[in-house]
């Protein structure tokens, strides 16, 4: 007999499976990396390229500048990066020491910065990183004034794109002796990181907190404020008001080490729309390019970087993709992916501590699978590819500096992307929801 296999649109097999899982386990799913659902993103935009009215630059002859200065609003020592692609904050604890060192090596070889994370600064990452951004998080795990003074910039973390409004989570299996000591907590217990700062609430307090950090560090270091993409227009405005030198905005696709799946998939807005809102705020306050904007959440290619800059970002930040450059989800040690119930290309098991490729683990055997020198080289190659792609697109649009890319160089392929990015739908002059006068 022919089977009648008409799927329920409301209850497709994936939903039924999840209901069964929930009914068996009685608890939500926790996992790593970013949203798995499709949202409007940079792939929904294209560059127009050069034409009769725009002259391209010669690919191998004419220079195309990629350097960017971050933090020259108030800091005495702003940071000059060679490329506008930075490495996002990822905690030691979530990642192993080798992974942190590899990130530092790769970033430094390309003249860009890397960032600490929840859990403090390791000496490996400090010594391997030319520019190291030190995060001040609600948990304050490992926070101390010596490391603060050793940092090249300070990033006050208000939120993360994967979980705006959520605290951190590091499950007990990842808490070895060193991680526990850095966080002043017993070994092997589940660690929750607070979702709110312990000593300030709201933008007025943040302004005073920033003043304190500047006083401790002689007004030398740029102060970044990182927010998840919740209400980017207002958050950008308030971060500027609070005295930030740099705003870091993380869209909903942004990765995490361990968060509830429901949080990752259902809280926050896509990077594309968030970026537009944030640039609006900067421009309205006449602060665009004076306070720099770093955008993150789902950046993968030089095209993503170029489109983000064209929409008004000063730089981008990458987390998941940098881990992938270190072999996350690579087709190696297949049997260990199997043990986790997954396959290369689908893994999101950073929370388990059993990372098959030695990136998101504290297990000494697994960690050996990542050689920090080789990892650093792969990250360097990856960053270098992104940079070349970025320059290719900038030259094609006639730009001698990647930050001269502009929204007028873009068209949207979908109505949604046109509305979010506020660029016209390709082949039309239509921007949904935007009135010129």
């Amino acid at each position, binding site marked *: 007999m022919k089977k009648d296999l008409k799927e329920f649109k409301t209850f497709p097999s994936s939903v039924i499976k999840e209901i069964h899982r929930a009914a068996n386990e009685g608890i939500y799913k926790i996992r790593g990396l970013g949203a798995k659902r499709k949202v409007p993103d940079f792939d929904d935009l294209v560059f127009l390229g050069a034409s009769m009215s725009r002259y391209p630059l010669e690919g191998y002859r004419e220079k195309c500048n990629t350097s960017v200065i971050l933090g020259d609003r108030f800091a005495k020592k702003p940071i000059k990066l060679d490329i506008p692609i930075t490495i996002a904050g990822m905690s030691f604890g979530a990642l192993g020491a080798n992974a942190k060192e590899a990130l530092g090596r790769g970033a430094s070889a390309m003249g860009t910065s890397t960032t600490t994370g929840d859990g403090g600064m390791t000496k490996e990452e400090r010594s391997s990183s030319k520019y190291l951004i030190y995060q001040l998080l609600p948990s304050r795990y490992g926070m*101390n*004034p010596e490391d*603060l003074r050793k940092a090249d910039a300070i990033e006050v973390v208000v939120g993360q794109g994967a979980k705006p409004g959520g605290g951190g989570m590091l499950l007990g299996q990842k808490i070895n002796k060193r991680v526990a000591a850095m966080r002043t907590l017993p070994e092997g217990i*589940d660690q929750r990181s607070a979702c709110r700062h*312990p000593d300030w609430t709201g933008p007025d307090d943040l302004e*005073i907190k920033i003043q304190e950090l500047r006083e*401790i560090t002689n007004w030398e270091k740029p102060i970044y404020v990182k927010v998840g993409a919740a209400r980017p227009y207002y958050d950008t405005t308030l971060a500027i008001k609070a005295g930030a030198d740099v705003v870091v905005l993380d869209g909903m696709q942004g990765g995490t080490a361990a968060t509830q799946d429901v949080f990752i998939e259902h809280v926050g807005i896509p990077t594309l729309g968030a970026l537009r809102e944030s640039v609006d705020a900067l421009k309205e306050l006449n602060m665009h390019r004076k306070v720099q904007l770093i955008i993150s959440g789902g950046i993968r290619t030089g095209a993503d970087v170029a489109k983000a800059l064209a929409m008004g970002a000063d730089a981008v930040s990458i987390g998941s993709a940098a881990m992938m450059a270190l072999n996350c989800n690579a087709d190696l040690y297949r049997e260990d992916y199997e043990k986790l119930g997954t396959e290369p290309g689908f893994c999101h098991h950073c929370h388990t501590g059993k990372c098959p490729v030695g990136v998101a683990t504290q297990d000494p055997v697994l960690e050996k699978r990542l050689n920090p020198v080789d990892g650093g080289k792969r990250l360097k190659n990856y960053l270098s590819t992104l940079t070349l792609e970025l320059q290719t697109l900038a030259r094609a649009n006639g730009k001698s500096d990647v930050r001269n890319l502009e929204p007028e160089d873009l068209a949207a392929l979908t109505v949604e992307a046109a509305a979010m990015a506020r660029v016209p739908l390709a082949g039309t002059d239509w921007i949904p929801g935007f009135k010129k006068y």
Partner: protein
Amino acid sequence: MNFDLNKKKLREVNNYLQNIDRKDNKRKFELSNPQGQHAICVGLKDEIDVTIKGHTGYYCAGMNQKANITVHGNVGTGVAENMMSGKVIIKGNASQSAGATGNGGTLIIEGDASSRCGISMKGINILVKGSVGHMSAFMAQKGNLIVFGDADSDLGDSIYEAKIFVKGKVKSLGADCVEKKMDEKNINELNKIFKELNISEDPKKFKRYGSARKLYHFKIDNLSSY
């Protein structure tokens, strides 16, 4: 040596105190007219004595290392936040989040401390001669919070390994915080702290509170606490 904060900019004063010339013998400083300014005496890192005559704003003595700082007045939010070592004495009252995330050293508040005193503390000793506000020692990880007066609601919510001692009444305990036995070891510990600080007080009058350690691993049976 005296600094008048009416006449000298805070940046200059902090800068001086943060960069003490170790060959110089000057080790005692007095700051007058603080007028509630924020971030006074933050990031000090030498063994010096600083007396502040008046009230201070937020984060006074923030991230202190080694210095002894005494405030003859009240202090704003986050006094001695993330302190590493040294001693900070407040003659008046303290606002919220006093001693937040402190890693070491001693914070003494002779008056009352407001809510979240000792929040996320990581090894500091905090002594409050008066009472503390709600949610004090929230997520406190290590160190001792010693309260001579009363504690308001939700004391020690989600506490880890820090110890809380209260002489007066406790309005209510937060999630996973329970009263624990005050044994010989605890009495000796308190005695030692009091002795070092020249405080005459009987440790036996205090009750001890700490973690029931039931939330250390995420378990579905604890759902109502999350």
